[in-house]
């Protein structure tokens, strides 16, 4: 197998060479603890503050509203638990959506056990949250709305600005998991009335194991990680200096020409979607036709199961995914695909292709060459397809 095409940029990205080069010195000669008083300590501190400014510039906020974490997951846990426990006196109701990442969903489920009430807003067939349903769900006990910016599986981008406006009107904190959005969609936390925002570096060509939480000045939030006085006493633990430097550089690069990057990805994606739907019968596109991440295409191929499809693609050198990477250990079909109304057996047969920087039209050609026969082969093995061909089952 010679060809190797990576089409799973929503799962993770490689670290760009420029990013890695900025990180390297902080592992070796500039390794000081950022809390230390001597010069290499102060250099680390400065490197962190420079990165903080870059993040602030990307999100249009103040540097001191940015707190570095070890992941998007930690940022989500912190935001949601932190607001919940700090505002228990005001209310115990949280609104989120049924298609959030598990970092949000499982955190909300944990809070339910702790006495909080959570509304999981349903979504329409495209994965869109309805603003009316959101309005209806709000009670005078609602302390937090947490709705993801863009979905990791089907790519649907939510009406964040409108949600922010509603939250602001009602005086409710608004958190958004923007792990998939940062670097792909322009974001302005003020314009969108976002109070808290989670991001993770490894989704935009930065390193794994570092993320950030934006917290608007004034938001009441408990600490999640107890310990030393790092991050102005808000997030304990020796700072991951190389990681933070990498995050800073990566977000700078990722937001430099977001429009150019987007239109490139959109072209690849749109051609892929169009031709796959034409070439392969019994196929549907999941997610919103236009309000979706520029690099995201998500298909359901009826009668076949996703894992075997991925394995066969892998044997042809194509790295793609089914559902989200985080749940691949699980046997359950994607909660996102079920939430948009797919029946179980179809939810099992999805393929997510997410384009990135290095992908080309030739990559799309290759997928279009390789994918249809694989789908056909798996269908030939499938008892469900046999029934359809025989006319036993209607589709």
């Amino acid at each position, binding site marked *: 197998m010679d060809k190797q095409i990576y089409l799973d940029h929503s799962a993770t990205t490689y670290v760009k060479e420029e990013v890695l080069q900025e990180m390297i010195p902080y592992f070796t000669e500039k390794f000081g603890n950022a809390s230390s008083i001597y010069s290499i300590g102060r250099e680390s501190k400065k490197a962190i503050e420079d990165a903080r400014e870059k993040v602030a510039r990307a999100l249009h906020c103040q540097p001191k509203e940015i707190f570095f974490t070890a992941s998007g997951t930690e940022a989500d846990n912190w935001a949601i638990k932190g607001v919940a426990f700090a505002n228990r006196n005001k209310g115990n109701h949280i609104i989120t959506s049924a298609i959030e990442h598990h970092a949000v969903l499982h955190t909300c489920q944990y809070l339910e056990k702790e006495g909080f009430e959570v509304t999981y807003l349903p979504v329409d067939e495209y994965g869109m949250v309805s603003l009316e349903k959101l309005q209806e769900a709000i009670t005078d006990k609602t302390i937090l709305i947490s709705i993801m910016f863009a979905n990791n599986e089907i790519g649907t981008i939510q009406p964040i600005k409108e949600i922010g406006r509603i939250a602001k009107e009602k005086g409710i904190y608004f958190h958004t998991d923007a792990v998939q959005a940062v670097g792909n969609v322009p974001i302005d936390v003020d314009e969108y009335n976002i109070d808290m925002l989670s991001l993770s570096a490894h989704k935009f060509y930065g390193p794994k194991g570092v993320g950030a939480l934006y917290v608007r000045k004034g938001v009441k939030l408990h600490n999640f990680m107890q310990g030393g006085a790092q991050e102005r006493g808000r997030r304990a633990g020796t700072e991951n200096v190389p990681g933070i430097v990498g995050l800073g550089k990566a977000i700078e690069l990722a937001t430099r020409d977001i429009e150019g990057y987007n239109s490139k990805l959109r072209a690849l994606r749109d051609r892929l979607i169009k031709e796959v739907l034409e070439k392969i019968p019994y196929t549907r596109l999941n997610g919103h036709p236009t309000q979706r991440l520029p690099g995201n295409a998500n298909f359901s191929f009826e009668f076949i*199961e996703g894992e*075997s499809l991925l*394995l066969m693609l892998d044997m042809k050198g194509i790295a793609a995914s089914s559902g989200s990477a985080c749940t691949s*250990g699980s046997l359950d*079909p994607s909660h996102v695909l079920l939430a948009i109304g797919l029946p*179980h057996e179809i939810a099992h047969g999805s393929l997510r292709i997410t384009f990135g920087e290095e992908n080309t039209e030739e990559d799309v050609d290759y997928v279009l060459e390789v994918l249809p026969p694989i789908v056909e082969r798996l269908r030939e093995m*499938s008892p469900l397809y046999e029934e359809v061909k025989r006319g036993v089952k209607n589709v």
Partner: protein
Amino acid sequence: MYSEKVMDHFMNPRNVGEIENADGVGQVGNPKCGDIMKMYLKIENGTIVDAKFRTFGCGAAIATSSMATEMVKGKTVDEALKITNKAVAEALDGLPPVKMHCSNLAEEAIKAAIQDYYKRHGMDWGEGDVCTGCCDSCHVEEE
């Protein structure tokens, strides 16, 4: 993740298809859980002379189907009934813990096909042994 043997049986599955006028046909699993196995047996004088399958499922499900059909061929019905899920998994050089239920499915598919064969021949064979459909019922947790 998967052994080479599993990958071989997945990429080059043996005995895919159906047997016209099969003597026993069994289908187990449930699309809800993402696995359905359908097995066809040709049985002559109590010996399985041919076996074929169609499977909707993950790599392990396809590989165990392939291996199970290989294993039953040439065996008597009684011998075939003694094939355990462990034996199928071992013949594949093991399965990841989270995928062990697939080998259960193979065991159950053999049983279901033989049950069907018994039924057609008016022989009795207690109910209730066969997979209820959802893999949760025979789920093997990693820890």
